[in-house]
């Protein structure tokens, strides 16, 4: 779960991480008042979870509170990559002596957390890593003991800091690390980190992604995680609320399957045969009739879907339950789109009997079924 910048900065401040002076506003009047209070030149930043808000015009500057009100009003009426801007962060513009980059990521390949740091901050770090990999420092942390004081100091030293600045930057890094532990973060990234004239380091921007599997330890985020953002479409939100693993895609063949790997392979097959999947939908292991029915209802109800392909390989899941779910939908609301079913495995015979009694059939091979599903749309 991604945190909004203002949320990330608020938890950072509580951990002693410096951030620019500022506050979040929902209206342009609030934005003006915040600027009055903080003084100086202000930055107005759209609070969205999608990336690339700067290029989309979601970051503006203003020297007077009235200007801030106008810019905030513009930004608050924007939709950035499908995500409506609901809040803006008003901050005092900081003058930088130097801009750096610092992040702490979960490193899959090395099964640990890794610190990435660079003295080339403020720009796209992936570009820096591609063009001048030597400018990005990578430092692995022990999986159990994490960041020790000498880890932080070594990174500061390698970035060229000595004496008091070495200690100040080490403390900054240690606090970012503490944040990653306390909030179970997959990613903590500050770009840029601003080194001020007075020697302090400031997280001018801050991105935090909390591990979804850790939300049970963070009740404060549980409600927030359900909010619809630009990252989740209305259809995705509806499906996920019903316990389905669901990703909306841009094609016209609705897909339902059990098991993430099998569903991914199903999408691939449909594409291989010239079709375009409308979604990824995993009903999970041991899905019951109700689960399957919900998935089918949601998917056939989507306007763009022109055919539905159900691909079930039953292990823990039972074919009779899957069949019941499909037949229920047929009885209650009717099948609104051409339906292709491939269903094999546990209780296969019973499942097929149930389908047959409702005038439906199931196929054996997923290749043939995928071809048939594609032909339903092509015809």
């Amino acid at each position, binding site marked *: 779960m991604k945190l909004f910048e203002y949320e990330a900065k608020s938890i950072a401040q509580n951990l002693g991480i410096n951030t620019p002076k500022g506050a979040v506003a929902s209206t342009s009047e609030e934005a003006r008042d915040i600027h009055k209070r903080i003084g100086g030149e202000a930055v107005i930043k759209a609070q969205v979870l999608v990336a690339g808000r700067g290029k989309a015009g979601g970051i503006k500057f203003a020297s007077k509170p009235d200007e801030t009100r106008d810019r905030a009003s513009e930004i608050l009426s924007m939709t950035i990559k499908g995500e409506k801007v609901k809040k803006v962060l008003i901050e005092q513009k900081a003058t930088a002596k130097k801009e750096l980059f610092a992040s702490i990521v*979960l490193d*899959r*390949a090395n*099964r*640990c*957390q890794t610190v990435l740091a660079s003295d080339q901050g403020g720009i796209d770090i*992936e570009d820096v890593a591609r063009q001048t990999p030597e400018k990005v420092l990578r430092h692995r942390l*022990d*999986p*159990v003991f994490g960041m020790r004081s000498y880890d932080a100091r070594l990174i500061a030293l390698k970035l060229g800091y000595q004496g008091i600045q070495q200690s100040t930057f080490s403390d900054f890094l240690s606090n970012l690390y503490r944040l990653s*532990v306390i909030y*179970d973060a*997959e990613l903590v990234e500050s770009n840029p980190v601003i080194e001020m004239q007075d020697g302090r380091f400031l997280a001018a921007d801050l991105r935090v992604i909390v*591990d*979804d*599997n*850790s939300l*049970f*330890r963070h009740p404060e985020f549980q409600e927030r995680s359900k909010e619809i953002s630009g990252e989740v479409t209305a259809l995705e939100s509806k499906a996920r609320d019903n316990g389905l*693993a669901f*990703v909306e*895609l841009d094609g016209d063949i609705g897909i339902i*399957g*059990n*098991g*993430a*790997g*099998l*569903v*991914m*392979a199903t*999408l*691939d*097959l*449909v*594409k*291989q045969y010239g079709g375009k*999947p409308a979604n*990824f939908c*995993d009903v999970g*292991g041991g899905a019951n009739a109700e689960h399957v029915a919900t998935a089918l209802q949601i998917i056939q109800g989507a306007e763009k879907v022109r055919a539905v392909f159900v691909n079930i*390989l*039953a*292990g*823990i899941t039972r074919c009779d339950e899957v069949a019941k779910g499909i037949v229920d939908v047929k009885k209650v609301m009717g099948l609104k789109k051409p339906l292709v079913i491939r269903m*094999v*495995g*546990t209780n296969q015979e019973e499942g097929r009997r149930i389908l047959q009694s409702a005038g439906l059939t199931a196929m054996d*091979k*997923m*290749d043939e079924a995928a071809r048939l599903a594609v032909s339903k749309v092509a015809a």
Partner: protein
Amino acid sequence: MGKQTRAIVQGITGNQGSFHTRLMLDYGTKIVAGVTPGKGGTTSVGVSVFDTVASALERTDADASIIFVPAPFAKEAGMEAIDAGLSPVVIITEMIPARDSMILIEYARTRGATIIGPNTPGIITAGEAKLGIMPGDVFKPGKVGLASRSGTLTYEIAASLTHNGIGQSTCLGIGGDPFTGLNFVDVLKLFRDDPGTDTVVLIGEIGGSAEEDAATYIRDTKYPKRVAAYIAGRAAPPGKRMGHAGAIITGTEGTADAKMKSLREAGVLVAEVPSELPRLLLQQVSPLQ
């Protein structure tokens, strides 16, 4: 792992734990005890239940453990099994916090234990024993070792191998999470030293670099056994998690096409669709035969 393996089930009294204990016993697996804190002294599907792993091992001998406990308690359940000297420790539980898995995997590494999972269907020695939730009937004994990042797709591919007369030695899921106890390279090493395996099938998916690392390992070590692979997720868009916590393309990394290319360049037989795997294996004879 095989007929002789003696295993305990942690979380044996839960729905999943008891259901799959029954199926594992039916398949021929030696399940010698179960553990559920607070339920010591009872039995579940005919197996004696203890409060802790240590107390179970006072009464019986065991080598391995399979864990079904809920995600918040899985890290300590794994440590408890490792402290008791059990290995492998198969962790079926899904949705374990990544930080917990990271710490547990390091704990196992420093103590010489093997973790399979988390978020795995488990491991099966065809026709002998299984520590997992896979349907036993799709597997038949043979010489293909199979490792996968997913569950149902493994059954799909194993079933099509079996259907084409290609049997399996050991099949295991390495797990669908970002952090797993074994990666493909670890599995390739195990299969290299297994006389019962002459061919390795890897079933990968988008996200991470486990497949690319496997390709590098196969190329650099001139891997002595035949390797075939299928990678799921060519149709997956970047930035979206496809069901598994680990199945996400970040930036330009982790795409199916890049993985297939690395594997092909390492001499691996790469299937475009799952049903092509048995065909590839039947066309090309193992170098050992």
